[in-house]
C-alpha cells in the first residue's frame, strides 16, 4: 500500500460520489427531496473535500468547500433545492469532475478556481455567512520565540478521564515540545472516603515549563479539554499579572492551594505587573529526576508495525479477462459434469447417479453465480440520460420530460459498454426529430411538454430496451418517398409498415428537413443498427402518426452459456436455446405435405412450420413420429419440425470458426456429455426464414390470383 494507490482509490471514489450526486440532482427534479438524498449530496462534496485535503489538492478543497457550504444549508433546510440551484450544483459537479481530470496539473487547477461558479455558490451561502476558509492554517510553522519559561495552570474538568482524555497523556505530549522544570500537583479537590469517584478527575497542576514553542502551540496541546477545563499558559514574567483572571473561577480552598503551589514554583501571585522573573527553582527538585525519566522512556513506537490488513470494502474490482476465463472453465465443468452424469446413468448405480446430480446442482449454482457477476443493471447507462435530455431539450428550446423504468434490469456487462452510444443516438433522435416544438404540440391538441420513455425488461431470455416518444410519429409516405428518391427501393414498392420504418436505418438516410446539430452529425441510424446487430440483437420500430414512435431493441441476455433444449433429426443432434421454446407438440400426421415449410393450425393460430431435415438438407429418412418445437422470438413464432425430443441440456456456446460465420441458421456449437458435437440453432433467423417464406408464398399466391408479377423485393 502506498500513497499512489491511495490516490487512485480517491479518484475512483470521487468518480462514484459524483455519479451519485448527478443522479440525485437529476432525480430530485421530478420528486421531493428526501433527507437521505440531501445527505448523500452533502456527503459527495464533503468526502471529496476531506480526501482531497489529504492529498494536498488545495484547489479542489477550496471549490468543494464552497459547494459543501451550500449543500449543508440545503440539508439543514435553510435552502430549498430550486431548479436554479440544482442547475448550479450540476455545473459544480461538472467542474469538480473537470478538476479531478487534471489533478496533477496545479496550474490548470488554479486557473479553474477563477470561475463564476464560486460567486454563485457564495451568493447562496450568504445567509449563513460562513467565513472560515477551508485549509490547514494550523499547519503553520511554529513561531520561533526562542526558549522561554512558561507557567502553566492546568485545572482539568472532572469529566476528562471519562472522555478518554488522560492528563498524563498531555504531559507526555508536552515533553515533545520542551522540558518540565517543576511540576506542582494541586490535590485539594481530592474527596475523602466514599465521595471519591475513581472515574472523575480531581488532579490539577501548576507547573513551570521550558520550551521554544509559541503560547498558541502550547495551548493547542489542550485543545480538546480547554473548553471545559481552565487551562492558562503564560510566560513566567507575565504570569503574576494574570493571577486574578486565572484564579477567578476557583473556590477559596483552591485559591489557597494554587497560591501555595505558585510559591513553591518561586512565583509571587501578588507581585502585580512587576515582572519578577523568578529564576526557575533549581530543577533539583525530586520531581524532575531526569535519570529515571530517561530510563523509563516508553519502549513503544517501534517501527515494526504489523503489515496492514487488506482494506475491506463491499466491492472488489476484477479484471474482466479473469472472469471470462473463469466462465470458460465453468463451461468446461458443465460439460464434464454432464458426461459424468451420463456415465453414471449407464452404470446404473443409483448412488453414483445421486452424487453426480448433487454435483450438477452445485455446478449450476456456481454457473449462475459467476454469470451474475458479469451482469450489471442497465441503470448504469440509463443514468446518464436525464442529464442529456435536460441539456438537449434546453438547447432545442423544447420542453421534454424523461421517464425511466426498469433501470434495475440486468444484462451482460460487455453489452452495457457497447449499448451506450446507440441508445444515446436513438434518444437524441427522438428528441430532435420525434418530439415537436411546443407550439406544434399545442396546435395538435397535445400537452406542450413532450415525453421520452426509456424502459427495459426481460422477455423470453432476451433483454428488451425501449425508447419511446409521444412525438409526431414516423411519416411512412415521407420515408418511402425519400427512400425512393435515394434509390433505396424501387418506386412502386409495397412494403409492410415495419419494413418501411426500418428504412431509416439505411446508410445515408435522413428525413429531417432541418438538420440540427443534435442528431444530424453525419452519424446515421445505420450505425445504430450495426452496433445492435454486433451484439446479436435486433431493433424494431413501432409508430403511429401524431402519437409517437417506439424503438425496441432486443438483446440476448448473455453471450456465454445457455440452457439448451436437445432435439435430434435423424442421427444429428441440435440444441435449441430453451428460453425460446414455448411448447412441444406431436406433429399431426398430415401436416407436412412433403414441403420444407408449411403451416399448422395451433389452437386457431397459424403457425409457420419449418422442417429441419429438409431445410438443413440433412437427407435423413423420416422418423415415424415427428415432433414440433414451438419457438418464439419477439412477436414471431414458428414450429420447428424435428424427430426426437431429448430434453433439457445446459450448454456452453462455442463460437463457430470464421469459416462458418456466415451461416444464418446456426449460432454456435457445443460439445455434449458424450463428446459428440451439437450445433446450436439460431432461432431468430430460423423464425425469420419460416415467416418470410410463408409470407412470400402467401403473397405469391395472392399475386398469382391477380396477375403475374415479380416477387416482393424482400
Amino acid at each position, binding site marked *: 500500500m502506498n500513497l499512489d494507490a491511495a*490516490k487512485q482509490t480517491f479518484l475512483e471514489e470521487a468518480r462514484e460520489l459524483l455519479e451519485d450526486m448527478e443522479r440525485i440532482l437529476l432525480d430530485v427534479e421530478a420528486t421531493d427531496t428526501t433527507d437521505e438524498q440531501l445527505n448523500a449530496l452533502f456527503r459527495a462534496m464533503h468526502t471529496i473535500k*476531506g480526501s482531497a485535503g489529504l492529498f494536498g489538492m488545495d484547489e479542489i478543497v477550496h471549490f468543494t468547500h464552497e459547494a459543501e457550504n451550500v449543500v*449543508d444549508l440545503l440539508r439543514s433546510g435553510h435552502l430549498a433545492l430550486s431548479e436554479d440551484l440544482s442547475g448550479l450544483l450540476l455545473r459544480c459537479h461538472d467542474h469538480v469532475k473537470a478538476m479531478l481530470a487534471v489533478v496533477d496539473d496545479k496550474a490548470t487547477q488554479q486557473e479553474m478556481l477563477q470561475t463564476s461558479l464560486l460567486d454563485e455558490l457564495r451568493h447562496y451561502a450568504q445567509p449563513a455567512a460562513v467565513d472560515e476558509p477551508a485549509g490547514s492554517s494550523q*499547519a503553520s510553522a511554529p513561531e520561533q520565540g526562542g526558549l522561554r519559561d512558561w507557567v502553566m495552570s492546568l485545572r482539568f474538568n472532572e469529566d476528562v478521564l471519562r472522555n478518554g482524555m488522560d492528563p498524563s497523556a498531555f504531559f507526555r505530549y508536552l515533553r515533545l515540545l520542551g522540558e518540565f522544570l517543576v511540576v506542582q500537583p494541586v490535590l485539594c479537590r481530592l474527596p475523602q472516603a466514599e465521595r471519591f469517584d475513581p472515574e472523575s478527575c480531581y488532579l490539577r497542576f501548576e507547573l513551570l515549563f521550558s520550551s521554544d514553542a509559541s503560547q498558541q502551540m502550547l495551548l493547542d496541546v489542550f*485543545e480538546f479539554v480547554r473548553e471545559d477545563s481552565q487551562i492558562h499558559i503564560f510566560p513566567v514574567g507575565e504570569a503574576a499579572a494574570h493571577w486574578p483572571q486565572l484564579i477567578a473561577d476557583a473556590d477559596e480552598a483552591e485559591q489557597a492551594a494554587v497560591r501555595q503551589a505558585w510559591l513553591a514554583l518561586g512565583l509571587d501571585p501578588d507581585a502585580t505587573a512587576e515582572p519578577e522573573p523568578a529564576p526557575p527553582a533549581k530543577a533539583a527538585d525530586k520531581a524532575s529526576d531526569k535519570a529515571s525519566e530517561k530510563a523509563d522512556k516508553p519502549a513503544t513506537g517501534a517501527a515494526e508495525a504489523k503489515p496492514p490488513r487488506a*482494506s475491506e470494502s463491499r466491492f472488489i474490482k476484477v479484471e474482466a479477462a479473469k472472469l471470462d476465463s473463469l466462465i470458460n472453465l465453468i463451461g468446461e465443468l458443465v460439460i464434464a459434469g454432464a458426461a459424468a452424469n451420463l456415465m453414471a446413468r449407464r452404470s446404473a448405480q443409483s448412488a453414483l447417479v445421486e452424487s453426480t446430480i448433487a454435483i450438477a446442482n452445485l455446478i449450476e449454482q456456481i454457473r449462475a453465480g459467476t454469470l451474475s457477476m458479469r451482469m450489471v443493471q442497465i441503470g448504469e447507462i440509463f443514468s446518464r440520460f436525464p442529464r442529456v435530455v435536460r441539456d438537449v431539450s434546453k438547447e432545442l428550446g423544447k420542453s421534454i420530460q424523461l421517464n425511466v423504468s426498469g433501470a434495475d434490469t440486468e444484462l451482460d456487462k460487455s453489452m452495457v459498454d457497447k449499448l451506450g452510444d446507440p441508445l444515446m443516438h436513438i434518444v437524441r433522435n427522438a428528441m430532435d426529430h420525434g418530439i415537436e416544438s411546443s407550439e406544434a404540440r399545442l396546435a395538435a391538441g397535445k400537452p406542450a411538454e413532450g415525453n421520452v420513455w426509456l424502459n427495459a425488461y426481460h422477455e423470453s431470455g432476451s433483454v428488451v430496451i425501449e425508447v419511446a416518444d409521444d412525438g409526431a410519429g414516423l411519416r411512412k409516405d415521407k420515408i418511402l418517398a425519400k427512400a425512393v428518391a435515394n434509390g433505396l427501393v424501387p418506386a412502386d414498392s409495397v412494403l409492410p409498415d415495419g419494413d418501411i420504418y426500418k428504412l431509416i436505418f439505411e446508410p445515408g438516410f435522413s428525413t429531417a428537413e432541418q438538420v440540427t446539430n443534435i442528431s444530424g452529425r453525419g452519424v446515421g441510424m445505420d450505425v445504430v443498427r450495426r452496433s445492435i446487430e454486433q451484439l446479436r440483437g435486433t431493433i424494431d420500430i413501432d409508430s403511429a402518426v401524431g402519437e409517437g414512435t417506439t424503438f425496441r431493441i432486443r438483446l440476448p441476455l448473455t453471450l456465454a452459456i445457455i440452457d439448451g433444449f436437445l432435439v435430434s433429426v435423424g442421427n444429428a443432434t441440435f440444441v435449441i436455446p430453451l428460453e425460446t421454446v414455448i411448447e412441444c407438440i406431436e406433429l399431426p400426421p398430415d401436416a407436412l405435405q412433403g414441403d420444407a415449410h408449411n403451416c399448422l393450425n395451433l389452437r386457431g393460430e397459424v403457425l409457420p412450420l419449418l422442417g429441419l431435415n429438409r431445410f438443413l438438407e440433412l437427407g435423413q429418412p423420416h422418423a415415424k413420429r415427428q415432433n414440433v418445437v414451438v419457438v418464439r422470438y419477439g412477436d414471431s413464432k414458428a414450429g420447428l419440425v424435428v424427430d426426437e425430443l431429448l430434453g433439457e441440456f445446459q450448454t456452453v456456446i462455442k463460437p463457430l470458426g470464421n469459416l462458418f460465420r456466415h451461416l444464418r441458421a446456426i449460432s454456435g456449437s457445443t460439445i455434449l456429455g458424450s463428446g459428440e458435437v451439437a450445433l446450436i440453432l439460431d432461432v431468430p433467423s430460423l423464425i425469420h426464414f419460416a415467416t418470410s417464406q410463408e409470407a412470400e408464398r402467401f403473397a405469391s399466391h395472392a399475386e398469382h390470383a391477380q396477375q403475374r408479377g415479380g416477387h416482393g423485393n424482400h
Partner: protein
Amino acid sequence: MAKTILIVDDSASLRQVVKIALMDAGYDVIEAGNGQEGLQKLDGRKIHLIVSDVNMPVMDGITFLKNVKQHASYKFTPVIMLTTETSDEKKKAGQQAGAKAWVVKPFQPPILLSAISKLILP
C-alpha cells in the same frame, strides 16, 4: 506493543492515507467504513483511540459514538471526530454524545497525527 487506533470513515482513500501516516508514526490501525462496521470491529480487542467521521452511510458517527460510550470495554476510549466547520449542530450533538476531540476536515495527515499524539503517543 504498538497502540491500536480504529479509523471509521466512508472514504476508503482517506482511510488509506491516514493509515499510512499512522503506521509510519508507529501505531497499529484497523479500519471501518461506517459506524456499524466500526462497532463490529470492537470485538474485544484493545483499542486505544478511535477516529471517526460524522457523516457516513448506514450508521453515522454520532450514533456510533453513543454506542461506543455504552460499551463497557470502550466507554473511556478517546474518540476524535472528524468534522467540517460548517456543522455546528452536529458538533453539539457530538459533544452531548461524549465527543470532545474534533479535527476539522480537510486536514493534512500531520494535523491528525498531532491531535492523536496529544491523547496517546505510539
